[in-house]
């Protein structure tokens, strides 16, 4: 049965959340709501106060009573590595620290008050060393902290004239792209920077770990149970069957609970092992902000060439990403960054170079958008600049150059279909009244000026290139008594609605009611490894095999029904009685045409892209430079909206994170330490700061997507908000800002620099 034959009763409808009742009555149990296990201890980490230094000794205050405090140090860790891409990050620092807040000692105690005092009674003797704290310093490499030059990973994408064969491709392609630029009628250059962003999920990271006859158990607030399992197996030298990782109801993640929980689980597990007691570690907000990952700061240098009529031809872009002190997932983040650097435009010649650099800041990590928001900020701001140089309206210039079916991206990927880009642009511009608002001079009422701006972005769904093929994500759908179907997957619901959307897909695929579908608690012991809950892959990639598995199980029941009659439930029960278990395990296989060359970074980077056009309207106070976003319109090509309300909720929530990143969110550092690790001074938007959102769903189905063509959209909304807001501010005030965040203080400084401020 092909998906087009499925009757759709649930997919496409905005059914309520299946986990809604538990969440709105307070019954849903998040990690810190789990009842204490008998004998449970609280755990804490003692962290480095300095950004870089040699660890000379660890001294436990002899005057303190340590009798009921468990102490774990580096030498207690069986294999002192946090298993990710590269084995450079220790579970606990041993001889040196590479960033502030790096964990050095772990403590556990039943009494929380005593635990706090115990933390204060640990003295770390550290000999500080010169630290590299910013991208510029890392690049200058006067102090080298990683490899020969602080460069930690590197990518090069070449297309057209830049795609040269040479011994030294880096240099040869650079020369080639410069020649191509020299041949262009209009050449424009710019430099665009962006900053750390804290995820600020409202539930901090947390984990409970305990040991029993079956081995190690860890339950917590996590996106990717199998990542945690892998890390525990490695760090504690355990076989996978002895490690049981379970997701508790999770209060938001956005990437911040992708790799970090592995570290936290290791800490809790080590304390639990040494103390022989269950150990709970739930971070307070301050520790969560200080110690966990952030979005990578980045700088992009961009030069483009175009025709006088605005046809974009040549792109040269170099992106520098601040990796922080350890590799963690940075190479993958940078990869996604360079793969999105061309934006939504059809470049004839392109050279995109990406470098990640090590600094002595806490490791940068996964964050919704995963590297793409940084390069898309750069390219969108840059195309606005080209429009300014040409005297064109930016939205029109963008529209003129949009990728179409048959065009190719910088990796040479030819877009085969499912490109609703032009429709998105039309929908967002029309709904927002962009053209009229833009045609007239910015509206100034009293001391307030209004402006409007737009961005157009894309986001690849699923793992990059050959990633999905390597990953081999699996799910199972089981038949249960009474004709019920149970989905077993490691794709977690962290708020984005996995449980509901999967249930909709299964209900339609199997032809059963929504209430007949269950979702098994994601636990590595009971659910197959579906791959991580990241990369906008849950609905499109995992959802497609959920759909297939449901179809297979239902087909068995229907066959039984056809053979011996009775209801679906009765036929199912007969099958179960006869066979004991009826289940379908499906494994993901990307479409056959997906071809990717990892060595040369060429080919089909993603099976499908989601697209969006964002329009922001702002009001700027000309006295105080306060910026309010007064309207936000987003039209997104989602392929197929499985649940339109939830889909819009994702788009709006992501857009507000992007607005926060653009306007107010700023991690302030001094000597590698964070000066504002609190909600009172790391400023995320409130309900009064959020604009009214108008969100439009464009559906250009992706033939291999579930539910009739769904594409992944989890990250897309993070991409376009910042450049749209910056363009709107530029329209309102004439101030061109190429570095985030766009705080009033920076607007004032820019205005002073232009010599135009008067109160």
């Amino acid at each position, binding site marked *: 049965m092909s998906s087009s034959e499925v009757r759709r009763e649930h997919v496409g409808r905005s059914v309520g959340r299946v*986990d809604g009742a538990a969440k709105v*009555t307070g019954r849903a149990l998040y990690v810190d709501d789990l009842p204490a296990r008998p004998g449970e201890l609280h755990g804490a980490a003692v962290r480095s106060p300095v950004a870089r230094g040699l660890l000379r000794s660890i001294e436990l205050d002899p005057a303190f009573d340590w009798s009921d405090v468990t102490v774990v140090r580096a030498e207690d860790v069986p294999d002192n590595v946090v298993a990710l891409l590269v084995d450079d990050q220790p579970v606990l620092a041993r001889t040196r620290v590479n960033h502030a807040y790096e964990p050095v000692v772990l403590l556990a105690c039943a009494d929380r008050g005593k635990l706090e005092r115990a933390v204060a009674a640990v003295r770390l003797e550290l000999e500080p060393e010169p630290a590299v704290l910013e991208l510029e310093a890392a690049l200058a490499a006067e102090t080298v902290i990683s490899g020969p030059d602080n460069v930690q990973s590197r990518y090069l994408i070449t297309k057209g004239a830049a795609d040269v064969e040479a011994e030294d491709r880096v240099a040869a392609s650079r020369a080639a792209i410069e020649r191509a630029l020299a041949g262009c009628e209009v050449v424009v250059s710019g430099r665009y920077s962006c900053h750390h962003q804290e995820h600020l*999920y409202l539930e901090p990271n947390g984990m409970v770990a305990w040991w029993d006859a079956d081995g190690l158990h860890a339950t917590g607030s996590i996106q990717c149970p199998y990542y945690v399992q892998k890390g525990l197996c490695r760090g504690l030298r355990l076989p996978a069957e002895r490690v049981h990782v379970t997701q508790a109801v999770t209060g*938001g993640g956005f990437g911040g609970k992708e790799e970090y929980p592995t570290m936290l689980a290791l800490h809790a597990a080590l304390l639990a092992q040494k103390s022989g007691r269950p150990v709970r570690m739930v971070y307070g907000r301050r520790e969560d902000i200080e110690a966990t990952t952030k979005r990578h700061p980045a700088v992009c240098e961009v030069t483009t060439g175009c025709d006088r009529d605005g046809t974009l031809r040549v792109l040269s872009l170099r992106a520098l990403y601040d990796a922080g002190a350890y590799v963690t997932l940075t190479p993958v983040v940078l990869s996604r960054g360079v793969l999105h650097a061309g934006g939504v435009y059809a470049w004839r010649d392109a050279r995109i170079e990406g470098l990640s650099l090590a600094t002595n800041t806490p490791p940068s990590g996964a964050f919704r958008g995963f590297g793409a928001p940084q390069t898309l900020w750069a390219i969108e701001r840059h195309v606005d600049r080209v429009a300014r140089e040409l005297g064109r309206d930016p939205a029109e210039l963008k529209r003129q150059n949009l990728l179409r079916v048959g065009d190719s991206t910088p990796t040479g990927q030819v877009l085969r279909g499912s490109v609703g880009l032009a429709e998105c642009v039309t929908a967002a511009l029309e709904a927002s009244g962009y053209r009229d608002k833009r045609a007239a001079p910015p509206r100034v009422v009293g001391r307030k000026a209004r402006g409007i701006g737009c961005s157009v972005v894309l986001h690849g769904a699923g793992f990059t290139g050959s990633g999905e093929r390597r990953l081999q994500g699996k799910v199972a759908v089981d038949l249960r008594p009474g004709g019920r179907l149970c989905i077993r997957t490691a794709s977690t619901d962290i*708020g984005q609605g996995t449980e509901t959307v999967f249930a909709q897909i299964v209900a339609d695929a199997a032809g059963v009611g929504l209430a007949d579908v269950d979702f098994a608690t994601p636990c590595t012991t009971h659910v197959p490894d579906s791959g991580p809950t990241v990369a906008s892959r849950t609905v499109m990639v995992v959802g497609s095999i959920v759909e297939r598995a449901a179809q297979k199980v239902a087909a068995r029941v229907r066959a039984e029904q056809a053979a011996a009659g009775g209801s679906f439930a009765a036929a199912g029960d007969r099958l179960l009685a006869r066979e004991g278990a009826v289940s379908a395990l499906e494994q993901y296989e990307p479409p056959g045409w997906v071809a990717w060359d990892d060595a040369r970074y060429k080919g089909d980077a993603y099976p499908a892209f989601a697209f969006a056009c964002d329009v922001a309207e702002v009001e700027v106070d000309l006295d105080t430079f306060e910026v309010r976003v007064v309207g936000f319109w987003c039209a997104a090509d989602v392929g197929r909206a499985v649940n339109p309300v939830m889909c819009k909720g994702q788009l*709006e929530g992501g857009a507000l994170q992007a607005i926060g990143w653009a306007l107010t969110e700023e991690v302030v550092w001094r000597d590698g330490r964070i000066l504002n690790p609190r*909600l009172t001074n790391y400023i995320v938007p409130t309900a009064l700061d959020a604009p*009214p959102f108008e969100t439009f769903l464009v559906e250009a189905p992706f033939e291999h997507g579930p539910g009739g063509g769904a594409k992944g959209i989890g990250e897309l909304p993070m991409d376009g908000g910042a450049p749209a807001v910056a363009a709107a501010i530029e329209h309102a005030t004439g101030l061109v800002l190429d570095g985030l965040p766009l705080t009033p203080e920076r607007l004032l400084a820019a205005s002073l620099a232009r010599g135009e401020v008067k109160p």
Partner: protein
Amino acid sequence: MKIELTVNGVARTLELPPLLRLLDVLRGPLGLTGTKEGCGEGECGTCAVLLDGEPVNACLVPIGQCDGRAVVTVEGLAVDGAPGALGRAMAEHGGAQCGICTPGMMISAEALLVARPAPSAGEVRHALGGTLCRCTGYERIVDSVLRAAAERRGAGEVGP
């Protein structure tokens, strides 16, 4: 210190250190874990409860100040354990995603709806101004509250 209060309509007598945070008393001895802790500093509003009908941050209220007073938590907004109009609207219209802010949002919304059964969208935003949500962008929370208000007006339902 001996503290007598009602929690979700039930009279309780507690013997507790008086400066314990109401939040910890609810989540600990009273077993009401629906009230969440997102910051412990009054900033996020996930710990909001009604204290004598007003929404307050349970992380900033010493239990000793609750003697003789009435506390309502998110659990107390349910009707026989099932969601009321507000809860249903949040679950069905996108007001809850990860759900960690939802208890606080519902408490703040409840306080508003009792005082103003037919609020404007702007009034809803003001009422929710002290509760952060990182998932939804707020649009659908506002929408859910407005829908719940309409339903409650229609059904004549009143809050607890």
